[in-house]
């Protein structure tokens, strides 16, 4: 089976700061995996490189075996990579439904319809409602997005990404800023979405309960370099990872 995503010797520096240092790894289709590492390790930067937000200095990024390095975010999205952001990236003054619906319309190539009311696009609307149902946001569909609780805004961000029907979904700290109960709920929900939408899913997390609870593979970044990669058991037992990041209690 060819990997869905191949990162090969990827590099990125900001001035003198080496933020991505010779990183290589493969993500298999249908895999759920985590990226962990201390603050400033370069996790978000790596996502930005994959999704075309940042230019890479050197290396290769292949998606389904084809190069995507140097492509615009628009093209990369069209290829099937979805993304939710560390700080929820939503459309605050639109309804929750419209936030997801615009993504559904975009996926269907219906955003260049100038004279038909959004409500008249029944397939996109049904699709959006189904996604809200999966996210547990159905009863808030008509509210404006900025009125949602913080955790729900993060879920909505994921919903927008899912609406584009990606094959690979990148989530940047999905539980950041959540209460312990919300984290537990989000963990279950992400596991459910992963199965339901038949995705390869890569998430960045600081919540170790979630990382070791649902990831099949864990990768550890430190100062831009891939320190370790393996199953949760392997990572938990890795001496280097323990000293660099996890600490003794693991």
């Amino acid at each position, binding site marked *: 089976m060819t990997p869905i995503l191949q990162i090969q010797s990827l590099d990125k520096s900001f001035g003198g700061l080496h933020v991505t240092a010779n990183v290589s790894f493969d993500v298999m289709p249908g895999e759920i995996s985590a990226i962990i590492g201390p603050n400033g390790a370069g996790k978000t930067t790596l996502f930005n490189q994959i999704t075309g937000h940042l230019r890479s200095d050197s290396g290769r990024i292949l998606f389904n075996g084809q190069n995507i390095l140097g492509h615009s975010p628009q093209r990369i999205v069209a290829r099937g990579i979805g993304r939710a952001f560390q700080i929820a990236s939503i459309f605050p003054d*639109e309804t929750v439904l419209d936030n997801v619906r615009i993504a559904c319309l975009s996926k269907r190539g219906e955003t260049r319809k100038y004279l038909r*009311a959004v409500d008249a696009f029944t397939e996109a609307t049904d699709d959006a409602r189904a996604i809200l149902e999966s996210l547990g946001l159905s009863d808030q569909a008509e509210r404006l997005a900025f009125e949602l609780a913080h955790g729900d805004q993060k879920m909505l961000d994921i919903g927008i990404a899912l609406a584009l029907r990606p094959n690979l979904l990148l989530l940047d700290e999905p539980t950041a800023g959540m209460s312990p109960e919300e984290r537990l709920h989000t963990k279950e929900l992400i596991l459910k979405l992963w199965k339901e939408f038949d995705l390869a899913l890569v998430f960045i997390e600081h919540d170790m309960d979630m990382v070791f609870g649902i990831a099949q593979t864990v990768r550890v970044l430190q100062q831009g370099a891939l320190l370790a990669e393996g199953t949760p058991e392997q990572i938990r037992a890795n001496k280097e990872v323990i000293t660099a990041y996890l600490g003794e209690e693991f």
Partner: protein
Amino acid sequence: MTNDTARRISATSLWTIIILIFALVPIVTTSAYKINVASHILVWGLFAVSFNMLWGITGMLSFGQALYYGLGAYSVGLMVDYLGSGWFLPAIALGLVMVIIVSFLLGLLVIRVGGVYFTMLTLAFAQLAWQITFKWYDFTGGDDGIQGIIPPGILENRIVYYYFVLVIVFVSIWILKRMAYSPFGLILRCVQQNPARVRFLGRRVRRNQLRVYMVSSFFAALAGSLMAGVDSSIHTDMLFWTTSGEAILMSVLGGLNQFFGPFIGAAIFILIEDNIGARTEYWPLIIGSIMLVMVILFPKGIVGEVLRLKAWFGKNGGGRQP
């Protein structure tokens, strides 16, 4: 969904009332002056609504829509002046074609620079066009403008021309309203709120900005060309920055976030100008004071505040108001 339907019905009935009022003007009054004021409200209403597609909906504050308003007016004025009154309607069409081309080329340029630079650059281009028109006396009549622009055939009749304007204005506003609530309109609002996310929907931000810039300019030019027949004359002021500024003021007055806000704003602005301007030359001071009060006390504009009151009394709060 019921809430949705309810507010759509109320928006529709509001439009029906507005159209009815304007349709009745020539019937309840024979005053050519009053019909002229009503025409001004219609034309400025269209201009302001088209401007608000840019600003209120997409978040692009152009200070130069007078350029297109003036281009529309001058293509009619010049062609009628040089070629005769029979060219009135073809001149409107030709002016619109020209504006499609100009707004496309200029749009490519001004949209590259965002925010306040966009505002300044649009202002600069409009002022440039004003300068050229002003200076090129032999061709444009300079500061004298062009008089005696008589529409052809039955349109020469004031009342027929009034209904001609009325139909074009409301059909145009209807088209713009459909656009504002189409997927295209939704993308435009998303561009205003979170352009980075729009890119990550696989949509191009600048391309959509260019589209709405062209749409807005097209209807601004249509408004300008209609105005040439309303007053039977055109003037360099139509290209001056104050014309762009008035569209901004009307939008703020009526309410940026309401689709028909700018139309109501235009009506109130012109009625104030007409009633107070007749009594005192200090009317700009009065409109200035009103604007100040509006912005400080009622930032949502007249229509926005009325809807808020209604929602408050009706306790059906929340949601977007069309």
